[in-house]
């Protein structure tokens, strides 16, 4: 299940998520729909990948250990790759958190609240990044 297996080489979706099980599920769901997926297990790793290549879109968890969280990823994109700002989907485990609420409200970035159904993920990805 690599990029070369795809009939038409297309830009991959970058999934930044520290929780392996969630990352695995998102990747499985997307790949089954024909999306190419590149994974990063932390915000810092995600930003490294973003710097090197271009992606069809970015899906990032908000709360992650380490220096870089979802809000930082959002901020980095807005600053360094503004064209990607509208191609970001955030994942949140706790939307009641006031910081999260503030981030979502101010950036108007779509957000998936954990736990979420596969259908919801796919529909939001298609709507935001387009079909594969």
């Amino acid at each position: 299940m690599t990029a070369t297996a795809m009939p038409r080489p297309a830009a991959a979706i970058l999934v930044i998520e520290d929780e392996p099980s969630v990352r695995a599920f998102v990747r499985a769901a997307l790949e089954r729909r024909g999306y190419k997926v590149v994974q990063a297990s932390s915000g810092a790793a995600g930003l490294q990948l973003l710097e090197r290549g271009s992606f069809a879109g970015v899906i990032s968890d908000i709360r992650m250990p380490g220096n870089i969280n979802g809000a930082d990823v959002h901020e980095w994109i807005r600053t360094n790759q503004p064209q990607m700002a509208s191609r970001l989907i955030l994942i949140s485990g706790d939307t009641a958190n006031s910081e999260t609420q503030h981030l979502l409200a101010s950036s108007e970035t779509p957000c998936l609240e954990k736990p979420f159904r596969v259908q919801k993920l796919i529909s939001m990805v298609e709507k935001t990044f387009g079909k594969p």
Partner: protein
Amino acid sequence: MRERKSISARRPAAVSGRKNPGRPKHDYSKELMELVVEAANSRVLPEFLRGFAERTAEMLDAEWAGVGEIVGSRVEIYTRRPGYPANEKEREWLGQGLRRRRPGLEVFPLKRTSQHIAFYPIYASDGELMGTLCLLRKAAGFSRAEEKLLAALASHAALSMEKVRRFSQLERSKKQWVEDIDAISDYIAVHDQAWKIVRTNRSLATELGIPPAALVGEPISSLRHIAETGSALPCPFCRDTREAREEYIATSAGRTFLVSTSRTRGVTEEESRTIHVLKDITDRREAERRYRELFDSIQEGLFFATPEGQFLDVNDALVRMLGYESAEELLRADVSAHLYPTPAAKARLVSAIAERGALRNYEETLRKKDGGLLHTMQNISAVRDALGQVVQIRGLMLDVTEQKMFQSQLQRERDFNQKILNTTQSMILVLDTAGLISYANRRCYEAGYRKDELIGHRLVEWVEGSHQKDFEAALQTTAHGQQVDNLELRARRADGSLGHFSISLSPMRDEANQVNNVVVVMTDITDAALLQAKLAHAEKMATIGRLVSGVAHEVNNPLAAILGFTDLLLENPEMPAAAREDLQIILQETQRTKEIVQDLLSFARQRPTQKEPVNVNAVLRQTIKLRSYDFSSHGVEVSEEFEANLSPTLGDAQQLQQVFLNILNNAYDAIQESGNHGRIRIRTRRAEDDVEVAFMDNGTGVVDPERIFDPFFTTKQAGKGTGLGLSICYGIVRAHGGEILCWNNEGESGSTFVVRVPAATETSLAAAVKEAGR
């Protein structure tokens, strides 16, 4: 003599100038001369008068003659021939005749005896009637010569009587004078120019142990040993002989004399006399000395002053007290103006003395020499003259500055304590060791207790029954001298409600160090206790919130994977039907878990999702409508007491509706459980800065109002609820900046839930609008 029964004075025989020629035998002139000689030699009047009467009788051929002398109211009769008057009657008659004041001769015939009695008055040179010459003889008529003789005899008698009287008077007064001089206890010595003693009085002679006469003619210097005065003159008592008067004090051999000297100048040198009076004033001097010593050594200030308050004499203590160098300085006339801080103070003192005569414990503030103030207490008495005018004031003065300062310090301390006692927010009571209240501070009365229900009553009566034992124990401990601090117990307030009190008991000891009183400080900490409970609750809820939030987040990750993979499995068309059913259950329970976590997150939420003006009354009406079918079909009455024009609050209408619905559901469930005829009162009102909604039901009430908002605390049977409903309400209301409370109704069934959220203000509304527009 012959008997004469009666004398008739009816008709006095005419005194005629008839001659009595048959008596030439008398040579009246010669006989009168003899009388004069006799009179001159006679110093004893009665004897002379008796002789005079005899001679008169002879000269006038009378059978009897007498001289009546008027001595006061009496008449003394002098005669040589007794026999007349013979009886009382005659004596009385004679007495009357002798007292007659008619001038000249009067003759009365005597009945039966054919005798005549003649009276001739004797007048003194000043015209005073001194007596009467009286004759009894046969012949009624008196010749002119005889009458002249009578007049001459009467004037002779008068002269003699006057002379003798004057002489005896002189004798008497001289004698009296000597006696008077002798009676004087002071020593008197008179000497002449030749320094010879002329006279001494008896006191002096007695002192010397000799008769007074023995000293006469002796040199005055012989009296030197009486009192050694150091005089160089021959007289030990003379100092300056040129002075008419001298007075000085001489001390000799332990005795002190006041020597007063007078000098009389006679016509000749020889007649000049010097009179010394020596007064032994030893005792008086000693008394004076003692008095002065006392006056000066006494520690209290003493003074003599004029009625106007000007000092006349002061003692050392007073001088010291007022800070002066000497008494002289203090006696200066201008001192009193400085002494009294105000002229009015002095005037008040002066008039008080004039009015009352004496002042006891009169308090006066005086100014010392250096200007410092001296608080004095004075006892003053006035000395008055015969007319009652105050002539002097005398007084004793005490320096009470220290006492005054001590007193005012004491007063200050008392005031301070009183202020503390009366302004403290704690109730302070004093009990005796039996627990009876003897004092309560003002705070007790401000709190509504009445004096008559405190004083004399046992404080324990106010303590709630279950706490009385604790209180009695504490009282015992204190009575044994141990302090008890911060005993917390419930007690009845003045209005009958129970309050939470913190009580401290301290022992108060008497002079013998025995505990005789207990001071009780009671503080109503009900509000504080409530606040503390509220804070503890809020803190607990916040802790739970943080915990829940953390758990929810952690649970959401695995939940996301479970849900996601379940979805992916279900997408697999190769999945057998049985497995698909199982997967559906997993999916279902995962959904349920998701909801629980979502609820938990709602509880922990810190801000409402929306912030817009919400009409609470409108939200309530909508909420009631949601349940109106259930309420009416189960006979639950809902009454709405909504305040018109209630201020809006800022928040999320949806969430608030969730809160109200939850409370209503709870009320409904409680009513159903109780079986009562259901009644729910919903009341809204503005409560200070909040909008308040109260729900009062008559259901079963709440088992534990304290814990009702805790997550998973439920009394409902399993499956009927997660136990998060009210926790979510709590979270929402908190997120709105409000509070939610619950208690069981007092005195009736059911419970009351109160939701308070801040009323929107212009500022908060403007801020919300701005926020929404971002």
